[in-house]
């Protein structure tokens, strides 16, 4: 954050990749991409590529992790070593552990876990190619993969991040904008209820800028929620 002297938006409000301030990058969704899983989803978003597999509900073992009144949700967010410009050493790190936890917290808010006491549902989020916003892509794709697995949910969770770049608030930061941006506000929205299940923010936003970024996210979440619904109806979505 904070290399403010690089010009990322031109005088007409056009961003480096040709988008306007409120535009989302192109998105595609494919279901059933992990044949051995109970549900799965491949989501591309800009040049991000994420694969999610869902296993379960299945017996939770060892027994000490079982909960008498509900299923345990076991969510892992992981970046493939070749997913970024500099190779990532395999193994869980603190960043991926935190993202796994907040993603799990968000999904627990919509999955009807109480229908499956003593069982476990595993959600495996694998970032194959990363280009800013992978936690949002992962969370959105995970809710689609859970639906693909037939797990009952009250709503999807659709996630997107707006931010600030060169003092201008824009929607859905790409890699270059993320590197030079001044703030990042990822949110996870339930498209039907309009409530939030996920929220993070880093950087510096005035109250007015914050409201603008919030509004961008809310609008984008409705649109992306429609893509997800279409993918679940038709087995995939492609712009």
């Amino acid at each position, binding site marked *: 954050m904070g290399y403010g002297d690089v010009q990322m938006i031109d005088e007409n409000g056009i961003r480096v990749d040709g988008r306007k301030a409120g535009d989302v990058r192109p998105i595609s969704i494919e279901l059933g991409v992990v044949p051995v899983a109970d549900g799965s989803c491949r989501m591309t978003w800009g040049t991000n590529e994420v694969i999610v597999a869902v296993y379960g509900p299945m017996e939770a073992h060892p027994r000490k992790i079982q909960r*008498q009144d509900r299923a345990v949700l076991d969510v892992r967010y992981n970046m493939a070593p070749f997913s970024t410009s500099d190779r990532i050493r395999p193994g869980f790190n603190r960043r991926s552990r935190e993202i*796994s936890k*907040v993603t799990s*917290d968000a999904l627990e808010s919509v999955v009807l876990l109480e229908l499956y006491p003593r069982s476990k549902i595993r959600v495996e989020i694998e970032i194959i190619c990363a280009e800013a916003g992978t936690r949002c892509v992962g969370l959105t794709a995970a809710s689609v993969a859970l639906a693909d697995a037939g797990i009952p949910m009250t709503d999807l969770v659709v996630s997107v991040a707006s931010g600030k770049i060169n003092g201008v608030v824009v929607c859905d930061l790409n890699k270059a904008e993320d590197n030079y941006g001044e703030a990042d506000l990822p949110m996870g929205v339930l498209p039907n209820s*309009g409530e939030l299940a996920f929220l993070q923010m*880093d950087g510096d936003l*005035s109250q007015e800028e*914050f409201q603008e970024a919030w509004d961008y996210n809310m609008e984008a979440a409705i649109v992306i929620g429609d893509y997800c619904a279409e993918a679940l109806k038709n087995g995939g979505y492609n712009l």
Partner: protein
Amino acid sequence: MSIPLVPQLLRSHLVELAENDQRLDGRRQWDGREVQLEIGILGNAEGSAKVRMGDTIVYAGVKFQTMTPYSDRPNQGGLMCSAELRPVAGRKHEPGPPSPESIELGRVVDRGIRESGCIDTEALCIIPGEKAWQVILDLYAISDDGNLFDAFALAGIAALRNAVIPFAKYELGDDRPLDVSKTPIMCSYHRVGGRYVYDASGREELGGDERIHITLGADAHVHSLQKGLKGTFTAGEFAELMEQARIKGDELRDLVHSLEGGN
């Protein structure tokens, strides 16, 4: 990990209290516990603070090391923030590798300070490309009766603002205070009995739902947000929390500044 029956009874009790706008210890919805803040109290640290909020007690200690700057940022030093939730702090804190909860705790507190930009990492450079200061802020809980997030954040910024860079120890000149340009303040809200409350106690956390952490700077600039645990919230609920954080943040910022001679 069987679920004790107690939390269910506790949850029901908290709902009842909330319906009457009450809390377990007699506080109102937006009341915080009494805050005691001391600075400069650790003999071997280069900056330190102790915070007591009710029965929650934490220490923060600052140490400095020299580092080689990263090759892509030859003019910058570093800031590292480490939060340890050791078993001394409570019966439920069993020894073992850091839990997802404690990792989240450390990272959220770290971001609240780091992302405010209160420390200019370029000012930590000693010789470009060769040597720079690394500031290490260690947060240490001694007694956990809820809301470690805010206690850590408050102790952390107070310890940093109290820190002196040990130039003399490293034979680099005279000691100098660390320059900290802002005072970001975190305020945390838990959903307890169905509504949000400020500064939840340990028992409120046990019987509560999701929590929201808001770190604000001067003029209510937003520096960091985090929603934790299972649960959803509405835009209207969030707007009220933001307003409350603005009020409380200014109050605690004044407390920090009041201990600093002429700051």
